[in-house]
């Protein structure tokens, strides 16, 4: 039996074991009964903060988890940068910027540029309405990023509708993340609990100063508190994260 046969045999063995694995997992998944659990309590108390329950759970009860998820994206963006030479030990490696400008067709030219405006405005609406209607920072940021993608795909990286440099994208991302972190710090400083929803003041006994509540309370029928601001931070971060990734990947296209 030569080496190749051994490796083919190994594939079969691995497949058998993965089959066992998936049988057990599928059995568990098909046979388990889901109970409402804590989400029942979240849904019970949520409407007094904002109408959109998903956003309220994501940004109030599990706001800290959302912070973590945002940082997964940030870490991934930084790592992409490192992969293409930014911040490598011993000095940055410059990737040759050879991404040619594209010659768009007439149809593309006529439609792409106005569409960018329309999409960006829609993304802003989704972001700002996140606590009332389905939507939010992640979704709004991704929608705005698609406008950037569209212009990059049509006009090329060098000459596209947005003249966003790597540096300014980074600043956007940093600002977005800092908005989130600092709103959390505001909760910590004013109430003693990180990411306390200051504007909504859900537990009034904590002694949060009234001026802070008024400052962060959002002009809306319900008092979503800091959630809309968190949405804005996340949107900035997500859109600049996606834009950075596509800038880096497109820039390295013909390396």
């Amino acid at each position, binding site marked *: 039996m030569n080496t190749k046969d051994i490796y083919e045999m190994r594939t079969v063995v691995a497949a058998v074991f993965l089959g*066992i694995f998936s049988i057990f997992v599928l059995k568990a998944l098909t046979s388990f009964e889901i109970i409402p659990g804590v989400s029942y309590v979240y849904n019970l108390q949520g409407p007094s903060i904002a109408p959109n329950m998903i956003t309220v759970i994501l940004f109030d009860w599990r706001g800290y988890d959302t912070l973590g998820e945002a940082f997964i994206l940030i870490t991934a963006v930084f790592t992409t940068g490192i992969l293409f030479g930014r911040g490598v030990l011993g000095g940055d490696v410059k990737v040759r910027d050879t991404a040619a400008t594209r010659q768009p067709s007439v149809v593309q030219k006529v439609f792409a540029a106005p569409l960018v405006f329309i999409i960006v405005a829609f993304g802003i609406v989704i972001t700002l309405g996140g606590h009332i209607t389905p939507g939010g920072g992640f979704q709004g940021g991704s929608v705005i990023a698609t406008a950037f993608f569209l212009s990059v795909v049509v006009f090329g990286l060098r000459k596209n509708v947005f003249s966003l440099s790597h540096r300014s994208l980074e600043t956007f991302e940093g600002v977005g993340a800092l908005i989130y972190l600092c709103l959390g710090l505001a909760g910590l400083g004013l109430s003693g609990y990180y990411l306390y929803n200051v504007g909504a003041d859900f537990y009034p006994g904590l002694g949060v100063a009234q001026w802070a509540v008024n400052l962060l309370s959002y002009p809306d029928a319900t008092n979503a508190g800091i959630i809309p601001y968190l949405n804005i931070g996340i949107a900035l971060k997500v859109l600049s994260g996606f834009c950075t990734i596509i800038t880096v990947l497109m820039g390295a296209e013909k390396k």
Partner: protein
Amino acid sequence: MRSLYDTLHETLKSRGGTHIGGGFTAEYMLLAFFPLAFVALLRGLDSLTSAVLAILVTALVAFSLPLVKKVSRENSDHFAIAAFYIAIVMGLVLFLMVGGF
């Protein structure tokens, strides 16, 4: 029959390099490790079965000497080898946990 030492020495020498001494130590350590590890693993079974299995494993190990070469090949950096063992362990862990033993 040639002595075990000679067999080992020749095989290890064929790998070249400076680690013949290390290879020898590794070889004997593996001989000691495998039965002991198996005894520890088969704790759940009754003592007679585990003893028999341990002896079997020892015999198996002893007859398949030298082991070092195989062991270091199976622990190399290759993606395929790592993926193979991960697949096996993933199946095995769930089998042992859910299927019980």
